[in-house]
């Protein structure tokens, strides 16, 4: 009995945190349960399949490991693990893997690599010397411009985008990014303030840290703590404890 209550509390806690990141959704009347791929979430024709679910006869079947959520008639899943799925206008951090005459191939942690065309750079680039701007192994902060079947185009034409200088990159699961950012950026601001480190989080789970050696290490450990304990209660307090006591 006690255990069940506890579980519910955790789940409710999750709901509030998640909904803050997607503020346009109402957080009322939401029930969540853990599902695995192939599991029937609900039966009956009253429901419609949403994200990561399919309809099989009159059953809504899960396609991911995650938390199932029923919102009015729509059943959707918030995945816990899996690869990054690029969407238009995502801010991502990537690593350049190849250069050709028209631009750069960028590894973004998803199933396919992205492409950054020369024309999407904010300044003039000499076509004979593309490496001058960015070469293989460089990290870039970019925005996804379009996602077509099998090709993802990036752009650097926006504020704060460009090649990353200094600091270093770490990687987490892209599904934990909302946890790292926290409610209206509370978690990331806490880490930034406590460690005096500049942090940029890409929606693909690549995170850029820039600060003192000690600060970067602390920030990395805090982020890894968030990743491993993403669904536990009172996460912000735990991270605060960790940062202050270390």
């Amino acid at each position: 009995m006690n255990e069940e209550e506890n579980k519910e509390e955790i789940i409710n806690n999750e709901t509030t945190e998640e909904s803050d990141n997607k503020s346009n959704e109402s957080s009322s009347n939401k029930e969540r349960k853990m599902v695995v791929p192939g599991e029937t979430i609900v039966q009956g024709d009253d429901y419609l399949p949403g994200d990561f679910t399919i309809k099989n006869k009159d059953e809504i079947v899960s396609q991911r490991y995650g938390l199932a959520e029923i919102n009015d008639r729509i059943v959707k899943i918030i995945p816990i693990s899996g690869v990054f799925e690029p969407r238009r206008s995502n801010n991502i951090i990537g690593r350049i893997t190849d250069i050709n005459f028209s631009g750069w191939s960028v590894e973004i942690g998803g199933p396919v690599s992205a492409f950054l065309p020369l024309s999407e750079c904010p300044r003039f680039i000499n076509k004979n010397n593309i490496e001058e701007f960015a070469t293989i192994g460089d990290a870039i902060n970019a925005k996804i411009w379009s996602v077509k079947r099998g090709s993802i185009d990036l752009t650097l034409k926006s504020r704060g985008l460009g090649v990353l200088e200094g600091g270093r990159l770490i990687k987490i699961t892209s599904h934990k990014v909302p946890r790292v950012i926290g409610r209206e950026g509370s978690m990331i601001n806490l880490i930034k303030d406590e460690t005096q480190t500049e942090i940029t989080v890409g929606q693909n789970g690549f995170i850029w840290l820039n600060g003192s050696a000690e600060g970067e290490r602390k920030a990395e450990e805090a982020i890894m703590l968030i990743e491993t304990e993403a669904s536990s209660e009172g996460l912000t307090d735990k991270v605060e404890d960790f940062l202050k006591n270390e």
Partner: protein
Amino acid sequence: MELPNINKKKIIKLLSEGKRIDSRNPSDYREISIETDVSNKAEGSARVRIGKTEVIVGVKLDVVTPYADHPDEGTLMVGMEFSPICGERYEVGPPKINAIELSRVVDRGVRESKFIDFKKLCIKEEEKVWSIMIDVYCINDDGNVIDASSLGVVAALQLSKLPIYDEENDQVKYGELSETPIPLTKNIPLAMTFYKVGNNILFDPTRDEEDASEARITMAITSPDKDKIINSMQKGGITPISIEEMNTIIEEAEKIYDKLFPEVEKMVENLK
């Protein structure tokens, strides 16, 4: 993700100040733990963790005909496998060049240190000898898999027992272990790998540090009496190592051996 250039720059910059990304000193190693009995079908097994790096080692024994040039000696084989679960850079399929090199480095360390008494593994000259087959499986690769594997092999050998051999029917009775351990000598090898990153030498690298390194050198050291003996050595990577650097590596190796070896010996002794 392969190592981004900025991470490599950071590692080299910190090392030039004598610091490392995880706040260790260049010659510090991460926490080591050894477990045994991880496989119930093997005659001896060990799981070694160095930080987040993890390997499982299994020892199997069989009776075979000896090689013609060593009619009274047992045989040793070491195999290494990196499966996709140990890191995103590994694919399924037969062992690649790095796995082959690693198993050979481990094999050479054990063989050349005369750790196994091959003569005592002989059952009948020119006809029957024990063959030791060691399989190393990498479970998680967070750098320094060579040292972890080597440590695992040495531990697993010490924790193995020979199975019962039925001479009349020429059959090994698997599942029934005798009380006889594998005949080993006092020359317990300890493999230590040093990595050269920029102009710095470091020990026990993480995955990122290993990716940033340009050269590495592995040594298997034993110390049966007072003196330490280098039994095997292998250099990898593209950049050369100068004589001065080699001297520092050997000095460093002696220091680390004195610290690390008693720790490891105690751990294995507790498992017996």
